[in-house]
């Protein structure tokens, strides 16, 4: 297959690992300050400062071309924040297991739908039977993993007592 797909696959793969790390770091911060929203807000602010300084140091900082984009293209970050808010609201009611499965089905299903209907301005991934089989296996794996979490209560229900805040800190 094309080189671009491999590069994209590598980027998406590393992105997935970074997501796991971000989730774990944020969960830890959430336990310390007893607020998932504040932990996300701090994390997103640090994201902006980090990406902003990286781009500045890299010499890529340039706001001029931003005028060429349609207004709605600026709303990507807001979609990410709304996604966080919705999952925080749903978590205490439906639990981490159902939440995890629902998010995976929602994002894969909707993405597949808009690409199959060519309702996309990006390149449309070529999705043959092989790719659809792969996506199906991912759904099965997610259900297998999530259904094992049933035994433990959702994260939001167990903020760590402050006196223990440092107990699990690695050196």
């Amino acid at each position: 297959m094309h080189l671009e797909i491999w590069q994209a696959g590598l980027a998406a793969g590393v992105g997935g690992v970074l997501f796991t790390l971000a989730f774990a770091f944020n969960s830890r911060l959430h336990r310390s300050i007893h607020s998932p929203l504040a932990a996300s807000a701090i994390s997103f602010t640090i994201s902006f400062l980090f990406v902003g300084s990286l781009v500045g140091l890299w010499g890529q900082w340039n706001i001029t071309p931003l005028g060429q984009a349609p207004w709605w293209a600026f709303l990507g970050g807001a979609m990410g924040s709304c996604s966080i808010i919705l999952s925080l609201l749903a978590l205490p009611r439906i639990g981490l297991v159902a939440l995890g499965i629902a998010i995976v089905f929602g994002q894969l299903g909707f993405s597949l739908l808009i690409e199959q209907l060519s309702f996309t301005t990006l390149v449309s991934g070529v999705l043959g039977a092989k790719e659809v089989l792969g996506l199906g296996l991912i759904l099965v794996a997610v259900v297998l993993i999530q259904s094992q979490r049933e035994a433990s209560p959702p994260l939001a229900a167990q903020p760590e007592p402050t006196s223990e805040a440092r107990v699990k800190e690695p050196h």
Partner: protein
Amino acid sequence: MWRLSFLVMAILSGVLLPIRYQLDGKLAQATGSLPMAGVVSTFVGATVLVALLLSGRFGSVYWAGLRLSPWWSYLGGVSGGSYVLLVTYAAIQAGTTLTIGIGIATQMLSSLLVDHFGWLGLERRPLSWQRLLAGILLVVAVVLLLS
């Protein structure tokens, strides 16, 4: 019915993610600058969350915990910011479905590892046969998506 509406909310939370990648990707293409698209996206995202936090409608915050939290718990923003740049790049090159599929697979595989060893202060969840089977399925899925 009540519970169902929260399930719909959870699904919507997932639906917003490919929309996010589409919009970030469009911004990167329209401006010809992936780095600046990342800056705008993280800025807008942070602004929305900070505004909601300041509205005070989402419960109280134990601010004193900021000093007690280990330094590495603040790295979520660094990995989160890098994630935005990488995923936007991948979405432009391969479309959102392949990007999300591979992203979920490596996210799950890495969380199996983190859970197994109880890294990063998370509760330990040793690999059971179900989790091992799921891990194998995920590896096969990635091979299918990339081959």
